[in-house]
């Protein structure tokens, strides 16, 4: 849950308690260590929501005890603490992590929230096991531990298996590979802003397309759309060329030639697609080379 000063006071937090959380939040925003990993996890959660067609918002460094990444989706709340250190435990630093999680658990109870998860996120498999098995008993019913690996190269967060899976669900398969994963990740990460703004999963793709209009990302809303007469005519001209297969899938127009050559043409909401359609109708290309000359 996205807690505000007012909500926290209403739930029994003292002014001093709120100030403590506020100063922790400011400290986290100023810190750089671990931030890259935390942000990667936040972007991943947004991608996962978008890929499963769920709406939701993701916040970084929220105003609450378990504050690193907070996800609100429908009536479900997920509070995650990111522990990047290979030596982090429940009891380290005088049991700080345990205290934070128990404080969050009490806060959720006071707020009468039932549908929630408190999560520890770690890049280390052995830490995941510790957090799972040594958790305070009261937390066990609401605790989740996620083993989110660090990328092998810091420049390639899209190559982490969890991220890859989420990106692949959003990308149009026949014309996508690692380069498109990088591109979609970069555009989506950029759309989340610096500093982070609580972007909504349902608008993330649209926001990302503002930075890259050629993103081959699937648009579920376009799935049931009917092509206009002009689009159908252009597709008929193109598909009469031997071995050429032009398709529109989930709002993206692309072609396949002989099963070895694939090309993104345009997103169908892009004005360049309309111009392409009109050029095809007027020039009626008869072979693949002529089609290339008309591409946006």
């Amino acid at each position, binding site marked *: 849950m996205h807690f505000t000063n007012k909500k926290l006071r209403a739930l029994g937090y003292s002014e001093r308690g709120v100030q403590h959380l506020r100063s922790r939040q400011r400290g986290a925003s100023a810190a750089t260590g671990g931030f890259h990993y935390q942000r990667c996890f936040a972007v991943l959660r947004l991608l996962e929501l978008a890929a499963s067609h769920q709406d939701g918002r993701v916040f970084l460094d929220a105003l609450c005890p378990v504050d690193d990444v907070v996800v609100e989706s429908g009536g479900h709340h997920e509070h995650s603490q990111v522990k990047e250190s290979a030596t982090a435990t429940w009891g380290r630093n005088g049991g700080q992590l345990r205290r934070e999680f128990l404080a969050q658990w009490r806060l959720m109870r006071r707020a009468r929230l039932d549908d929630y998860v408190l999560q520890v996120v770690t890049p280390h498999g052995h830490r995941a096991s510790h957090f799972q098995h040594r958790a305070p008993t009261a937390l066990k019913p609401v605790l989740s531990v996620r083993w989110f690996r660090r990328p*092998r*190269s810091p*420049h*390639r967060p899209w190559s982490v298996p969890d991220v890859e899976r989420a990106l692949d669900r959003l990308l149009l398969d026949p*014309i996508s*590979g*690692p*380069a*498109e994963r*990088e*591109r979609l990740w*970069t*555009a989506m*990460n*950029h759309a989340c802003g*610096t500093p982070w703004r609580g972007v909504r999963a349902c608008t993330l793709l649209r926001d990302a397309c503002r*930075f*890259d209009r*050629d993103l081959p990302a699937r648009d579920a809303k376009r799935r049931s759309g009917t092509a206009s007469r002009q689009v159908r005519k252009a597709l008929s001209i193109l598909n009469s060329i031997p071995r050429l297969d032009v398709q529109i899938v989930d709002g993206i127009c692309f072609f396949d030639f*002989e*099963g*070895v*050559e*694939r*090309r*993104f043409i345009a997103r169908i909401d892009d004005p360049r697609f309309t111009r392409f359609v009109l050029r095809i109708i007027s020039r009626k290309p008869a072979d*693949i*080379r002529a089609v*290339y*000359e*008309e*591409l946006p």
Partner: protein
Amino acid sequence: MTREFSAWVGPSDKRLLSDLLRAVGSPTRYRKAMYRLGGALGREIEKRLPSRGDVVLVCTVEDADYLARGVLEVVEGTRRVALQCFWNLRKKIGGRELAPIIGRYEEPFAANNVGALVVVKSIIAGACVVRTNLMEVIERVGRKVPLLVAAPVIHEQALVKLAAEFSAEDVRRIVPIWCARDSERTDGFVIPGIGGSVYELLGLGDEVSKNRVRPRILDERPTRLESV
């Protein structure tokens, strides 16, 4: 401005590089010179290939008919080659340089038979395109094979930039092959490099126009649908 040559580059190879610079302004001569440089690079690539295994040859659309053709004709004399040609479009998003692939021609290959990956490029300066295309095929090959990165000219920082983008394990497999290494870069162009913007020098227009070109070599590839 300093230019350094690889140890394997002889007087005839140096002449090819000079021919390239002299051909600036004449796309026909420039194309021929680039094709011949491809042949020279191809001979050196062949020497560095492992003794067995097929070759996956990766190039960009602008290089396909000239530099890559020269390399291909040499390497294909002794090996089975699966050509991969990519249409890249350079973009800058949030301060990061990207070279997304908007089109791809990918001859099938059997990953188990691949002995080496060879990426050829007319010039490697920022290494952005090479990085993208290499990343694309590394995943498809899946096995730990040598990664030969070849270009007539590279900038002195290019390989450092390339290495920063890959894991230490992948970097160890990279075998750089270049004729000349230049130290100066002005307004994005390596000096003297290959004489300027390769798309324009080859007569393919600007970055958008070159992506509306379909290389002739793609029509000439035999048995495209058969896996090598």
